[in-house]
């Protein structure tokens, strides 16, 4: 009974977050195939996490690699920057995309990866908007309540890619977008780039 309410919140968050990007002949993404794609990624990720021969750092680096292959980071980055993308110079765009990818991969590899005894279950899959599929999953962890996550997935010529993750009803890209908008309005695109640089510079836990 992982709540209907949670799933509803996920769906609503998704709909609010990513308006249909204006591509013409939009093909609908098959929810079943999107679920299979996600299942495959999850299997790969869980295998990495179970490998206790590797250090936590190594496991997370591998999770980041899997994510890099399966997320459409350039598209997410552009969307999250909003209107400011159009005004940004090519150099600003390149630097922003590089830092944004690093920031997303680090943040989400930490939030989703690393856990021992993680389990992954697909609850349901359905269409979202005109083109995408939404796959709802339950991620179980030892010693804590399961995490319900929704994945917005789009099929295309290069295969399936994840466009958004919705955790506890909160869309990753909608949250980032509003946060970045506030930063850009105060400090400009260069200020946002600098803030991203600072963010990836925190120290991890100490060994002693």
């Amino acid at each position, binding site marked *: 009974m992982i709540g209907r309410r949670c799933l509803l919140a996920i769906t609503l968050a998704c709909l609010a977050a990513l308006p249909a990007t204006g591509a013409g002949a939009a093909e609908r993404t098959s929810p079943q195939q999107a679920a299979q794609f996600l299942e495959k990624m999850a299997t790969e990720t869980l295998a990495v*996490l179970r490998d*206790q021969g590797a*250090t*936590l750092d190594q*496991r997370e680096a591998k999770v980041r690699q899997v994510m890099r292959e399966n997320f459409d980071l350039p598209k997410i980055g552009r969307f999250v920057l909003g209107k400011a993308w159009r005004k940004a110079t*090519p*150099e600003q765009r*390149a630097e922003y995309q590089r830092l944004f990818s690093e920031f997303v991969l680090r*943040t989400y590899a*930490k*939030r989703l990866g*690393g*856990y*021992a*005894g*993680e389990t992954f279950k697909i609850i349901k899959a359905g269409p979202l908007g005109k083109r995408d599929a939404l796959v709802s999953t339950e991620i179980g962890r*030892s*010693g*804590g309540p399961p995490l319900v996550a929704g994945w917005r997935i789009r099929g295309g010529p290069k295969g399936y890619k994840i466009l958004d993750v919705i955790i506890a009803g909160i869309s990753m890209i909608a949250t980032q977008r*509003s*946060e970045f908008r*506030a930063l850009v309005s105060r*400090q400009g695109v*260069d*200020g946002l780039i*600098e*803030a991203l*640089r*600072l*963010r990836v*510079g*925190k*120290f*991890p*836990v*100490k*060994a*002693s």
Partner: protein
Amino acid sequence: MSVTRAVKAAGVAVLLGAGILMGLYAPTARADFEAGWRAYQRGDFPGALEAWRPLADAGDARAQFNIGVMYDEGRGVALDRAQAIQWWTKAAGQGDAEAQHNLALALIEGTGLSQDYDRAVFWLEKAADQGLVRSQYSLGKMFSYGFGVPKDLNRAFRWIEKAAKKGFDKAQYNLGKIYRDGQGVDDDAEASTRWFLAAARQGNAKAQNQAGIRLARGTGIAKDEVRGLMWLTLATRQTHPGAIGNRKKLARKLSSEQRAQAERLADAWAPAPSHGG
């Protein structure tokens, strides 16, 4: 036994007891801390939290710092930046430099939409004064952009120079730019090239691109097009967007023998050990 003597004896016993307890406490605390670290490495985050929490409550700055990281990253607990800030504030107040640094960055990030640049600068200065290279560099960037402080290019230069001298590649690259553009200090082509090269040797792609351009033109250093091409090749291999075009342009000017030589140099190149990152 007189009353006073009894009191004295009792006092000694208490002191001895306390001494024994304190003596015992230290190794136990160490064992608990290490148990937490091992649990964390296994991915047993609730176990790590269980080990560290009592230590943190008893005032152990390392445990406070680590719990702050767990809240900041949402590991074993729901992500909660306000909690992270609280734990790091405790450890930072005890002088833990890494906690001061992370706290400053968390304050820049803010909880939700509110940032506190003033407090961020306060803690960055503390950590930078303790010699933490990343904090010195970040503080320099705060001054160069005027985040939480009035923009001050000369102070930006001084902090970035400190971090660069300790070998931090990003600071070295930035110092190269500062000397090239004369921001907060007189421009100095030689110093600029020297610092770009220092960062380039550590594998910094942007610095390799700059070093390549400057060697190709002979700016701030004797012209050496083959070495210039080597740096541009190395930057290109790291997919630096600007280096790709710069490399093609330079390669067209050189003989096939020179190009082959640059390629060989690039193949044989290995990064110098990095510092402070």
